[in-house]
């Protein structure tokens, strides 16, 4: 088919108003939130119904057109950057919450539902959807599942994969595949839903997702503890867990980040502190009181110089505002902000922090580190200006070194941002050549023409 004929075909299927071919429209879908070069797609299509989504997928496959599904485009590893000349399929026209079942505690959603809006709807019914990625105000549930997004509550409540009960997805032939169930237990067939989580759009196109809901905690208590060294702070983290307490959130900030946040907001953070821990325990009121007391004792035993326990909702919010400010405050310092998510086993956090400091010193880079200490998911944030070629080369080297370090400690390339284009080159290093070959073989069968988000995760062969 000629290009014009293909465009006509897309318009027939999706409606002309849902097909964008102009230069400006295509340019606006050539990037995501990763610091990578943009790539212009040939066409952008916005299906409004499940059937159209399936038909669009089939049309792409029939014509060998690379297809990249895009929700809000907040991806931090280039997973939603299109393939040259490919098709971007927007899911924000598929944004209906199809069902929230209070009796059986699950929900069925279309992939384009915005995470925070979904969580709010669920909360209105007295239930709780815990995954809370930093971009939840705009990110979509489809994207969250495709990336296995995490968030601040990962330690106690798990990440997106822990809430995916099942899904319907379109295969490349435009056939609907159903997997999982609305029941808590289900072992019917392969766990394809599990396979689709974190597949970054390379194995199928999500149509409907069934998500698990839980009862919300009745009470919560937040506190901020100040430490004279990162070592003391990370030992506190280990000790809290060793005492059989799993806080809902357990976040850490290094001195550079503390100072930057304080400059940004002026909320009275201790700028001399080497490290801060932000801790929240939740659950039954009695349990919360007990656990908060133990956490307080552990912090003090490990040398916390100050400890602020939030007395009310306003103070609790102030604690979390400091954490929410970390990224914006760092992002304000320099034009380019490379937010990594190298993750290590919890016990290796002090060593990882030390390694990050060494890398920053050795390469003369500015790195602020904050992150989810409770689950070992750190966010070393490199501040730079991409236009400075010489410095950018050092940044790229720094990124290599960060992953080398994390992997050498038994860690992982990505806690929650995904592999995408940015980290596919390291994949075999963390896994094995055989793993990569297995993954590629599997993809080649499910997607023989290689149209589903090419080059992501498993890279170009």
């Amino acid at each position, binding site marked *: 088919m000629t290009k014009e004929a293909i465009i006509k075909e897309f318009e027939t299927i999706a409606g002309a108003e849902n097909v964008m071919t102009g230069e*400006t429209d295509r340019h*606006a879908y050539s990037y995501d939130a990763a610091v990578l070069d943009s790539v212009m797609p040939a066409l952008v299509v916005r299906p409004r119904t499940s059937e159209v989504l399936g038909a669009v997928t089939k049309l792409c496959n029939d014509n060998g057109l690379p297809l990249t599904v895009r929700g809000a485009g907040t991806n931090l590893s280039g997973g939603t950057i299109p393939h040259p000349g490919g098709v971007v399929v927007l899911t924000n026209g598929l944004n209906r919450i199809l069902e929230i079942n209070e009796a059986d505690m699950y929900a069925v959603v279309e992939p384009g539902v915005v995470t925070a809006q979904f969580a709010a709807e669920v909360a209105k019914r007295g239930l709780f959807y815990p995954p809370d990625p930093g971009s939840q105000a705009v990110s979509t549930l489809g994207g969250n599942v495709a990336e296995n997004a995490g968030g601040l509550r990962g330690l106690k409540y798990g990440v997106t994969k822990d809430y995916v009960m099942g899904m319907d997805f379109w295969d490349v032939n435009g056939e609907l595949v159903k997997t999982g169930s609305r029941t808590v237990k289900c072992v019917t067939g392969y766990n394809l839903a599990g396979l689709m989580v974190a597949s970054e759009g390379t194995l199928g196109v999500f149509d409907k997702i069934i998500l698990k809901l839980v009862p919300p905690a009745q009470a919560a208590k937040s506190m901020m503890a100040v430490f004279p060294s990162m070592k003391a702070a990370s030992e506190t983290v280990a000790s809290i867990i060793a005492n059989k307490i799993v806080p809902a959130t357990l976040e850490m900030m290094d001195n550079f980040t503390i100072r930057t946040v304080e400059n940004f907001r002026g909320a009275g953070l201790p700028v001399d502190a080497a490290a801060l821990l932000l801790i929240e325990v939740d659950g039954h009121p009695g349990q919360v009181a007990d656990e908060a007391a133990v956490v307080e004792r552990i912090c003090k035993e490990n040398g916390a110089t100050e400890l602020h326990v939030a007395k009310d909702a306003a103070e609790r919010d102030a604690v979390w505002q400091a954490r929410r400010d970390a990224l914006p405050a760092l992002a304000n310092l320099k034009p380019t902000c490379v937010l990594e998510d190298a993750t290590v086993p919890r016990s290796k956090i002090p060593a990882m922090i030390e390694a990050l400091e060494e890398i920053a010193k050795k390469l003369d880079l500015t790195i602020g580190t904050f992150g989810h200490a409770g689950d070992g998911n750190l966010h070393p944030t490199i501040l730079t200006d*991409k236009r400075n070629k010489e410095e950018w080369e050092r940044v790229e080297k720094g990124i290599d070194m960060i992953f080398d370090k994390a992997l050498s400690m038994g860690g992982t390339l990505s806690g929650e941002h995904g592999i995408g284009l940015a980290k596919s080159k390291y994949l075999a290093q963390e896994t094995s050549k055989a793993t990569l070959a297995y993954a590629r073989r599997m993809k080649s069968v499910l997607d023989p023409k290689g149209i589903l988000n090419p080059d992501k995760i498993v890279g170009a062969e």
Partner: protein
Amino acid sequence: MADIHKLAQMLKELDDQLVGCMRCGMCQAVCPIFKLSGKETDVTRGKLALLDGLASEMLTDPEGVNEKLNRCLLCGTCQANCPSGVSVMDIFLKARAIMTGYFGLSPAKKAIFRGLLKNPKLFNALTEMGAKFQGIFTKKVDDMLGSSCARFNAPIIADRHFNTLASKPFRKIVPEMDTPAGSSGLRVAFYVGCVIDKIYPQVGEAILKVLKHHGVGVYMPSGQACCGIPVLSSGDTSTFDTLVGMNVDILKEGEFDYLVTGCASCTSTIKELWPHMYKGDSSRTYDIGVLARKTMDISQFLVDVLKVEPKELAGGRSVTYHDPCHLKNSLGITAQPRTLIKAAGCDFKEMTDAGTCCGCGGSFNIAHYELSREIGSRKADNIIASKAKVAATSCPACMLQITDMLSQKGADMSVRHVIELYADSL
């Protein structure tokens, strides 16, 4: 028209500001236009990417970029919520100026901006004539809201429900004023603004009544020109410079402690855009700086300076409040108007999403009425759902839009400026 390479060179000026956008996409959560269309070109991240693409000569379609750039209310919500602190409004205003330099101003805008706004006398005379004859073309729709609609098929009016031009503009009621400080020991300059003068003179009268009540002297010179925001948002920087110059030259003649306005847009323009965007005769720079520092929204002046306090016993009319973007996003003023409503003894009812744009956006309403109406319609729904009897706000442009929206929905309520409510209570 210059060549596209030249345009790219001009846009390079913005490079240092554009590079600050880390493309996180958080602007999608707050942009009123994106909320409707879901299109990346309608949200700030997309628009910044388009400007960047044009500057780096990756794009070849300046018309397309310009068209997308203009699909923006300039409400500033994205900037107020940007994690990277990108100066979006500054970038957009500069980009619009560059684009207007490249494409030229449309003949209609040229006639209105350079023919009318630059000549306040002619502008005044024409609107006065319009006020006399408008009855022939319009008919009343809602007495409570004071709205009218077109009697005949008129493309510019479409099916808007609007407040007609006042039969007697404010400048005819009170041509000028120069009174000494009273019991407060303070004197303010009163900058009237076009919409209060020509459509809502009663707001101007309310401001004078309140100032008199509090013993505040008033310097209000005649011959005030438009503050310049309409021309600046269309990229006409030369007319902007002229208008600022005209205003500064007459305002600086008076002695006063503060400059007050009853228009959120005028306030933020004088306070932020006059010092920042004025590129005219540099001998005025100092005076512009002084004026900007002295400028205050009227409710901010009453609450922060005169210490007006809320009344303990509310029980009066139930009132809800819409935050104008130019007060909330540009200047961070949200508490004072609410305090003033309570000081007026009204029963305050907070509406849902009080801080989201009403969809007016000045000339955006003219160029993109359908979008403007969809956004405004949601605002009206929230106002109605508040169950208040009065919708109050601090910007006459918002008043026009909200009146249109409420009138079209046949809502049983009135639209007032907060200062009118306070003046009523005195």
